[in-house]
């Protein structure tokens, strides 16, 4: 088969909803697209532990603390699932990590915002995990087998994350006027960055074309963003908080909410590294990685010793 025939056979499989597996032939561009998307997803899970780690020692109750710890541990696990899926495409874990640390790879910009109050732990779970769920539910049907399987696993675990966040913010919204103000403030600060999580509008999205054709992405950025808005507005009403968008209103005709202009200058500015916490996040990641170096070395030395012992015996 020549390249063109292979490409046609590949597209036929995609169109027939047959998953692509690691050893199958795939266009180089498909492989690259997935490596970029899966590693960005993995990095987001891992860097996403930082804004939450900020509150472990200041969690208001023991229950809140164990819940937060369990959630952070899940995020670490999700990063592992995703790196493992990414590695099936022929890049090593070390390469992925190096790309993150040298800023060749990105992670979700939302994690470059600070978590200033305990209410932010609520807003992060409710909005950030909520937005992630909308995206990840859709990705359960992505065309690459290992990525789809990782998504199924992640989605099962993720709904606890969103519910715990919504519980926190609902609790604060019912509290003293100061607590309610804190909840509203968290929503005000995190609403727009959460909408930006879905990426640029479809018309301005450079990676969308082949991603849709190859069914890596099953729904477009704007479709997913709309889904998130439609289900979140009511949740805000239930707990008496106001979404910070004066243009937000129900559109009878489309059956969706219309919403205001997203500040894309802010989005691109954060993507380019100028968000409030970009530097801090990356420095922390490097520090943790370097601090763990001796552990990896010791584990490798131990394994080597065990192997030698076995050879002698």
């Amino acid at each position, binding site marked *: 088969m020549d390249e063109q025939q292979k490409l046609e056979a590949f597209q036929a499989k995609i169109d027939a909803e047959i998953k692509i597996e690691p050893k199958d032939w795939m266009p180089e561009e498909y492989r690259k697209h997935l490596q970029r998307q899966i590693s960005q997803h993995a990095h987001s899970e891992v860097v996403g532990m930082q804004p939450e780690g900020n509150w472990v020692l200041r969690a208001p109750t023991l229950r809140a603390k164990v819940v937060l710890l369990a959630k952070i541990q899940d995020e670490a696990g999700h990063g592992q699932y995703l790196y493992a899926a990414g590695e099936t495409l022929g890049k090593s*874990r070390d390469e992925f990590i190096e790309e993150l640390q040298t800023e060749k790879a990105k992670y979700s910009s939302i994690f470059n915002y600070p978590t200033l109050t305990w209410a932010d732990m609520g807003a992060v779970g409710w909005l950030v995990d909520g937005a992630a769920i909308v995206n990840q539910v859709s990705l359960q049907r992505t065309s690459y087998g290992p990525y789809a399987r990782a998504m199924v696993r992640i989605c099962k675990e993720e709904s606890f994350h969103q519910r715990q966040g919504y519980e926190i913010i609902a609790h604060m919204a019912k509290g003293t006027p100061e607590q309610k103000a804190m909840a509203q403030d968290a929503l005000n600060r995190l609403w727009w960055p959460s909408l930006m999580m879905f990426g640029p509008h479809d018309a301005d999205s450079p990676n969308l074309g082949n991603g849709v054709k190859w069914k890596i992405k099953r729904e477009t950025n704007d479709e997913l963003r709309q889904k998130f808005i439609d289900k979140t507005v009511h949740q805000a009403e239930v707990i008496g908080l106001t979404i910070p968008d004066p243009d937000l209103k129900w559109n009878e005709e489309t059956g969706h909410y219309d919403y205001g202009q997203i500040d894309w200058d802010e989005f691109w500015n954060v993507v380019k590294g100028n968000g409030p916490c970009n530097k801090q996040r990356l420095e922390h990641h490097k520090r943790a990685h370097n601090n763990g170096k001796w552990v*990896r070395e010791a584990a490798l030395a131990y394994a080597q010793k065990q192997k030698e012992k076995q050879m002698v015996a």
Partner: protein
Amino acid sequence: MDNIKDNQGDVWEVFVQSKPGLPHKHAGSLHATDKEMALQNARDLYTRRNEGTCIWVVPSNAIVSSLPEDSDSFFDPSDDKIYRHPTHYVMPEGAKHI
């Protein structure tokens, strides 16, 4: 260790049995430098919510897989033996429990 491409340890495949009596099913993979670490990492990574009663870990490089490009010829021998299926046989009218 043979397949260390980086300093994160070997890749291991994880199989989890969700209940006694059921087969072990592939759950995913992980990195570890030895078998104890592989087993503990598998527990922490794939059974945080009582998903399993038993775990197998296998070094990825120990797995032998058939190749997709050979699939057609490899599985061909089973293609033309319809007599291996029970529906191939004609039962007498009225026969039951067979």
